[in-house]
């Protein structure tokens, strides 16, 4: 539907203009958001992601505080990407769930504390997420159910600048 794709480009453009493009508007003008920049740069023929209707989820053990699957974070030592032994059981519970549950998939989000350089920490978070991924694959989880995403030090769980905060920030979160 080539004609429609051009239209779909024009519609957000019109919204953009209405939002801040008018010079006489009393509203303060704003910078383009990342999504708008993409809209402006998107090649033709590439459709917009359709809006998915909200799914009504049945009660999941992942959200049940009494289930071992409720815990979804493992922590790491400083500048280290080795899984500590006390988290192996927790990861096995999740591996088992992923293995047995059709359609279940998880993103392993790697994080670090704020010490050291941002790009090195991005790589360290990647190593942590990958360590968990490898463990899950060794436990039999199909690789296609696992993806990794490192945020490095960009998304701290705790914003303090002390040992306690840093310990909480060196982690991999299992995001279903």
């Amino acid at each position, binding site marked *: 539907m080539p004609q429609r794709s*051009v239209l779909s480009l024009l519609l957000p453009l019109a919204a*953009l203009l209405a939002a801040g493009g008018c010079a006489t508007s009393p509203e303060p003008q*704003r*910078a383009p958001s990342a999504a708008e920049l993409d809209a*402006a740069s998107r090649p033709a023929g590439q459709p917009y992601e359709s809006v998915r209707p909200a799914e009504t989820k049945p009660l999941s053990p992942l959200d049940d505080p009494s289930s071992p699957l409720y815990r979804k974070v493992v922590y790491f030592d400083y500048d280290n990407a080795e899984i500590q032994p006390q988290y192996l059981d927790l990861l096995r519970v999740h591996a088992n769930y992923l293995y047995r549950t059709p359609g279940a998939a998880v993103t392993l989000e790697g994080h670090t504390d*704020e010490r050291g350089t941002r790009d090195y920490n*991005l790589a360290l978070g*990647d190593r942590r997420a990958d360590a968990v991924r490898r463990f899950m694959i060794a436990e039999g989880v199909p690789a296609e159910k696992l993806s990794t995403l490192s945020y490095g030090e960009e998304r701290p769980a705790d914003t303090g*600048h002390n040992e306690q905060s840093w310990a909480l920030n060196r982690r991999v979160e299992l995001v279903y």
Partner: protein
Amino acid sequence: MKTHGRIPSSFLLLLGLIAVLLAGGAAHAKLTIEITGGVEGAQPIAVVPFGNIGDARPGVDVAAVVSADLARSGRFAPMSPREMLVTPHREEDIDMRDWQLLSMNSLVVGEISPSPAGGYMINYDLLDVFTGRKLLSGELPSTEKGLRNAAHRIADAVYEELTGEPGVFATRIAYVTSTGRGPKSRVTLRVADADGYNPQTIVDSADPIMSPTWSPDGRRLAYVSFENHQSAIYVQELASGRRERVASYDGMNGSPAFSPDGRKLAMALSKGGNPDIYVLDLGSRQLTQLTDHYAIDTEPAWSPDGSQLLFTSDRGGRPQIYRVPVTGGPAQRVSFEGDYNAAASYSPDGRSLVMVTREGGRFRIVLTDVGGGSRRYLSNGSLDESPGFAPNGSMVIYATQNNGRGVLAVKPIGGGASQRLSQDSGEVREPSWSPLLR
């Protein structure tokens, strides 16, 4: 209607133009600059307020901008206009004895006239107070909007004439800011003039933005963004706002660095299972893997001649700096002192490096020779990072903490005044100094 498969480039240009208009109109918190170090040995100079010819009514005090630039460098101590006994605008109106009495070394005078083509013509002279000799005479056209930039270019010319090194007042700085926490947090990539004025938002996101870096022509920025829960490297043209996603592989996509000729982008990718250094040819889109090691390899930085890349690796157990030829081959370790050295980059002349080092649990900026020796600390914080040279090699910009808040700092290598750049609210980090803009 097959022709609709591609958008005409003029349409894309229009979209880009709209993005620029939106960005240009946005009011943003300015970067505030404070001088934080001593100014011993600064040269006395008088920049006399420029005269206005005819009906020229410039909206910018050009001489004040020149003065502020020179003061910020730490190399000059400009006289306050209130202490001036006379305010000549032309060479023939100057009596050097007035300025000798005030112990000035140098004098800048100038005037601004309306240009027949619209805008202004700025004429200025730089004179040596002892000899009365004219060191520099310049003529610069400017629009009303371009007056600050014209003033920065005059300051650059004066600075270069008196110090022998190019000024960097007409350059820009890219940086990342963040405000708020949790779902309300915003991260923006901004570009401001080197004096903190004219901040422009390049990207605004609810997700992290990292590692902005300039193309050698100063027209594009590469950066890492986490939109849509994925890390990806983008290259964005500043003038049009158009951007392109150049790397979004499985795993980590980080640490972009333009080659000195602007044709290639070095980056760190973990698509092969662990972070390694790759080089992407931006023209042919060919991706070449440069390092292959089970350890972390990241933070590539090109040598000014484009033949070598520095990178950080923990292949020896702890992060250290290594060097590898761009054509491939074994990596050689560069840093040996200390158990944490990272984020190294070259000075423009290729003779020095700056990097982050850990010492006694503190992360500080250190200057070394190209071989990693002759270390000298440039910063004194505990979480200092993201160091990079100014394009004339005379200063290093880095990110630091001030009262628990992220700010930027500029440290002259030859000593003298330091600068602190902060925003009224929120954090500022990951500075990247533009190349010299012509």
